[in-house]
């Protein structure tokens, strides 16, 4: 499913919390796409996929956001989003909001999904000489189908995880594995606020597992999981750092250490 049209219109959707809290994740995503020759547009009217509202039950309040998404992105062929769970929410708009047919939201792809499945990228030309663990986010895994959830039985046909495929192609990057392949980090949107104790315990257990794996960096296609893990790690003064997968794939330095990753994303 490669792009055949010479200049397909590709839009970048930057989730609200990435826009406000992690601008560099948006910039790294943009640089990564541009480095692969994609002409990316960033429609300024974009806001939020509605997930924070839908997941707390305020579906009616999310409907205007969905309409806004359709009017903002309706003309684009591909809409790329550097967040698995926001992409999953958008893909599931018709189901979650009840009734309306899939429009632009049905054309949303998670960043690594777009790179691998649409552009056919096999490896990203970047050097990242570090031990990296990939946090497989629940929504990427079970709602977008990016990989094999560890509980699925025989007869389930998994799709490869594009984020993992890309990391495997990075020069000098060592992928290390936690014991529990896809245990939830405990973020869960409003869950982290309404269930602070369980949420913190889940996150701490996940961090312990990554620490035992020998990872220096925890990466993921979902910045919200990483935000939760990083905030726990900062409070607990852990030595690990988090980077969004786009930041790894453009070779950003490890945060807090000044230690350079090298290469410019191509």
């Amino acid at each position, binding site marked *: 499913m490669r792009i055949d049209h010479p200049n397909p219109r590709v839009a970048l959707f*930057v989730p609200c919390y990435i826009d*406000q*809290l992690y601008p560099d994740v948006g910039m790294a995503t943009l640089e990564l796409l541009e480095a692969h020759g994609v002409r990316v547009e960033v429609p300024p009217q974009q806001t939020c996929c509605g997930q924070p509202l839908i997941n707390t039950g*305020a579906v009616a309040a999310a409907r205007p956001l969905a309409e806004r998404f359709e009017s903002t992105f309706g003309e684009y062929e591909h809409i790329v989003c550097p967040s698995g769970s926001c992409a999953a929410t958008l893909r599931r708009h018709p189901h979650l909001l009840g009734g309306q047919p899939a429009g632009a939201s049905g054309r949303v792809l998670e960043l690594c999904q777009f790179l691998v499945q649409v552009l056919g990228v096999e490896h990203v030309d970047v050097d990242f000489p570090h031990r990296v663990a990939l946090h497989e986010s629940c929504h990427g895994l079970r709602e977008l189908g990016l990989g094999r959830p560890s509980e*699925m039985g025989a007869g389930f046909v998994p799709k490869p995880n594009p984020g993992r495929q890309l990391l495997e192609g990075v020069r000098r990057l060592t992928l290390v594995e936690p014991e529990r392949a896809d245990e939830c980090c405990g973020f869960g949107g409003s*869950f982290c606020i309404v269930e602070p104790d369980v949420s913190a315990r*889940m996150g701490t257990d996940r961090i312990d597992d990554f620490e035992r794996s020998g990872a220096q960096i925890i990466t993921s296609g979902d910045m919200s999981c990483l935000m939760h893990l990083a905030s726990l790690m900062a409070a607990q003064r852990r030595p690990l750092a988090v980077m969004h997968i786009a930041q790894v794939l453009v070779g950003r330095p490890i945060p807090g250490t000044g230690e350079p990753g090298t290469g410019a994303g191509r």
Partner: protein
Amino acid sequence: MTVSGSDHPSRAAVFLADPDRSGWHDNALWQIRGRRDQRARALPEWEALRALAGRIKAHTLSELPEYLTSFEANARRHGAEVHFARDAAEHNRIVLDLLRSRGITRVVKSKSMLTEECRLNPWLEHHGLEVTDTDLGELIVQLRREPPSHIVLPAIHLRKEDVAQTFSRVLGAPPLSDAQSLTEFARQHLRAKFLAAEAGITGVNFAVAETGGIVVCTNEGNADLGTSLPALHIACMGMEKLIPRAADLPVFLRLLARSATGQAITAYTSHYHGPRPGGELHIVIVDNGRSQLRAEPEHRSSLYCIRCGACMNTCPVFRRSGGHSYAAHVPGPIGSILAPLRKPTEHQSLPHACTLCGSCTAVCPVGIDLHEQLLTLRRRQVDGPALLELNGTAYRASTLKRTFTALAGWVLASSWRTAWLGVAVRFLGHRFPALMRLGPLGRWSKTRSLPALPLRSFHEEYARRQARLPRASGRPSRGPGQ
């Protein structure tokens, strides 16, 4: 561990206050989940079997009145008595009458979630009967006067030291430390109860409409002893336990034990077709809200549940918070659907005791869309259609929550309002960091640092970059070789 109230987060905090126990509980259930996963991967038809089981349950529910009628007729043909109970109170009255009219005072009972739901034990005890739970885990929690914390592993929240302490405190056991001597002690204690019992109460795992038979699955053989020694056997079942044909049974038996504990099959799968010679078999079929649930299109499939507990073992919240945190007779993901549908105000926190990770839905052997239904319940709390109490009053989320979400929706529906809110928060956050610890953010920062606020949002950075770039390079064309 005594906690009042049914608020999940505060009850979870109590369990988590002992980090060793919570960690040990999580690991124990993770091991069991691992055994289930191995079984699921080893059986080539696993996913097909799950789908089939869901279809059989959907079909049975759609024809439930007919299947109940034919089950009743066929069970009677074998000499069993069949009773129908509209609710828990009627169920308890039927059981008490059966026992009292025969002058029975000592009863042994094997595991039955339905009798937990109906609170049969306290009712019978209140009327002067002695009821002994004969499943080892159930016995332990009964001696501690606690409810089970898990539907398959009732005492999974306890360590063997706790069990030894309970046996010694309640039954005067000598100091015992290893699992084998504890089990042997319980066996001897139970042996006397079995021999003295005048009636055996069991649950029902499956009731087969075509044959009128009932099936009880245990690993300890306690149901078999309880129904072989006394002359009276009372089997209590929710009306959703029905399956159409004997040929459907293997589908469920294969799924049940594998999903529950990772065994290929339970140690004992006992089939009852009528009473044993000289004995009596009474089957009590209970509605207790199931008809209403059957009429709820979005929640009907929660009646498919075969009580295997796989959703609890895989649930990352349940493993950390323990079963008692749910304050419901069925805890975990399935309980978080069933309980708020019956008592929406009391159990309002349960649909939120979930990260929506979706693993429960992926393991459910009968294909209940558990996490989707939890999301639906959240929606019904805020937007409706409102969940109703038994007396007909509607539960709605707090005005504060509804105002807050409506306001958030209004801000996020406009890019400039979103941008300005961001500017304001970043300004205030940089100037007055203490503000960032108020309200809901305070609950974030209870255990976590706040992310460092950037100077500018992505959209501001992007606008600056576009302004700096000459027009041509701001719009790169596709490179060659892609």
